[in-house]
C-alpha cells in the first residue's frame, strides 16, 4: 500500500480521475457508469473526470502505459493510483480511493 496521506478535512478532498476506455466495449461502458455513479453519490462537486479512449488517443495511452482497459487513474497524490477493471466491485474501488468505511 502506498503512503497516500492527506491533511485537512476529508470532505474537502478533490478527486482528479482519468478513465481510459476502449471505445464502447462492455467493460468500458460499465466503468464509465460506475465511476459516474460513485462521483454522484459520494464525491458530489469534488470530482473531475476525464475520459480517454485509447483507440483514439494513442499518445495518452502510451504516456501512462495503459495496457489494460478500462483503467482508472487517480491523480490526487503521488504516485498515481491505478485501478484496473470495470469498477463493478464498488468495495474495492472505495478502498483504492481511501474512502472511509461505510
Amino acid at each position: 500500500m502506498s503512503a497516500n496521506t492527506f491533511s485537512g478535512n476529508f470532505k474537502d478532498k478533490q478527486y482528479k480521475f482519468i478513465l481510459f476506455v476502449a471505445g464502447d466495449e462492455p467493460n468500458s461502458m460499465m466503468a464509465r457508469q460506475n465511476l459516474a455513479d460513485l462521483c454522484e453519490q459520494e464525491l458530489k462537486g469534488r470530482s473531475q473526470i476525464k475520459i480517454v479512449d485509447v483507440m483514439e488517443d494513442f499518445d495518452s495511452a502510451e504516456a501512462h502505459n495503459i495496457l489494460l482497459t478500462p483503467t482508472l487513474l487517480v491523480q490526487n497524490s503521488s504516485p498515481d493510483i491505478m485501478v484496473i477493471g470495470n469498477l463493478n466491485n464498488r468495495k474495492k474501488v472505495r478502498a483504492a480511493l481511501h474512502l472511509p468505511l461505510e
Partner: protein
Amino acid sequence: MNVSDSVPAAAPESAKQAIPKIPTHIRGLDAILHGGLPKDRTTLFSGGPGTGKTLLAMEFLYRSALAGEPGLFISFEEQAEDIRANVLSIGLDPGNLEKAGKMKVLHFQIPHGAVRAGDFNIQGLLTLIKGNLNALGATTIVLDALDVLMRVFNDPEREREEMYILNSWLREQSLTAILTVKSMAGKKPSYSFLDFMADCIISLDQRITEQVRTRRLNVVKYRGSGFLSNEHPYVISPHGVVLMPVSAVSLEFPAGKKRISTGNTIFDKIIGGGFFQGASILLAGPSGSGKTTLAVTFTRAACNRGEKTLFISFEESREVLVFRSKNIGIDLQQDVDADRLRFLTLLPETAGVEQHLLWISDAIDAFGPDHLVVDTISACRRMGSRSAVFDLLLRLVVICRQKEITCLYTNQIDVMPEVTHISGLKISSVVDTLAALYYQDDGTKICRRLLVVKSRGSNHSMKYHPFVITGQGIDMAFSDNNGEQIKNQEG
C-alpha cells in the same frame, strides 16, 4: 540416434514454397525450418528458464532488422536496458539499430500497486502495439514473457479468451509475431491451448547430464511446412545462437574424388589405392595399437604435399604429439612452422557435444584445412552422455563432407569384435573407410596387425597385415595374390 530419423517430414519441392517465410538468419535454424518462420503468422517459442527464448527471439528480430525488416520487441518481464545488456553477450547491439529507427525495445508491465476492481481486457496493449509498429513502419513483433502479462487475469478461462483475441488481432493486422512463454521441462505446458493458435511452435530445452549442460531445440509443429523433425542441439555462442542440423542429404558419398596417400605406400596398396579426398576414415583399436601413429603418418604426408591439416586432440598436447612423432621419424614441427598443420587441443569434460562441435567448426572455418584428424573420438564419452561419441562423429562427418575435407578419426576400443559399433550404434554405415588395428603382446614380442574392415568404392585387401613401428615410422607388409611380399623400404 538413428540416421533414418533425420529424414525430413515429407515435403515435395512445391509444398516447401507453399507458405511465405521470413528467414531467421540464425545459423542452422533456417535449414531446420525449411526456409524460415511463417510470415504474417504467429510462432511460439516455449521453454524453461535459461533456455535462451529471449535471446533467440531477439536475434531473429535483430537480424531481420539488419536485413531491412524493422521490428518491435516488447518484454513483459525484463527492463529494456537489461535486455539490451544481455544480448550484447551474443554479439548483438540493438541500441544502434534503435537509434537508426530499425528496431525498438520496450518494457511493459502492470504497475505493482495497481488494484483490480472488475473485469478488463487487453485493448490498451493492442493500441500501444499498433501505435509503436506504425511509428516504426514495422510488421514484425516479439512479445517476450507473455505469460507474465497474462497472470494479471488470475483466471485460466479469461487468459484463454484474451490470448485468442490477441492472436486474432495479430492475424488480422498481418503481423509476423513471436510469442515467448515459459514452460517447465517434462510438465505439460501451462499454455497448451496456445498450441492450437500458433502456426509454428519451437520448443527449447536444457538439461544437465553427467554434469554437462546440453541444449536442444525441437520444432513441435509447423503448419503448412516441412521441417527437420529431430531434436537439434544448439549452442548460445558469442556470435549468436548456433544450430548444426544433420539431414539425410548431407550423407551422400562424394563420388569420383581423387585419391590421396594414406602416408604409407603399402597401406595405400592395402586399401586399394589410398583414401579418397573428402572421405571419412575411422581407425579403431585398443590403446597402443598404433592409431595415432597412423594418423600422424597421414598428416605428415599430406603436409608434405603442401596440403593443410587440422589436428584435433582430446588427449595429448601439441608438444607431446610432435615429440612422440619425432621419435618415430616423423617431423611435424616443420609443418607447424609452415602453418600447414594446426592443432586444437580440447578437454571433453569442459562442455557438451554441440559446444565442441562449434569450436571445431570455427577452427575449420578459420584455417580452411584440406584434412581433419580427430584423436581420439572415444574421449567424447566424457562429454556427458554415452551417445556423445556417435553424435559428434556423425556431425563432423557431415560438416567435412559438405566442405570436401578428408577426415580421419581414431577410436579407442577395448573389446575388438565391436569395431563396427560406437556407443552401441552402428558406425560402419556412416564412415567410408573402417580399419581395425590389433595388438598382441605375448610376453616376448609385440604383434601388430591391420585389417581393412570396409572401404567404400575401393577394392581393398581382406587380409590381416602385420606391421611394426620403427624409428622411421610404420613398416607394413603386403602380400599380393601371387603370394609375393612387398615391404616398405623406408617406412
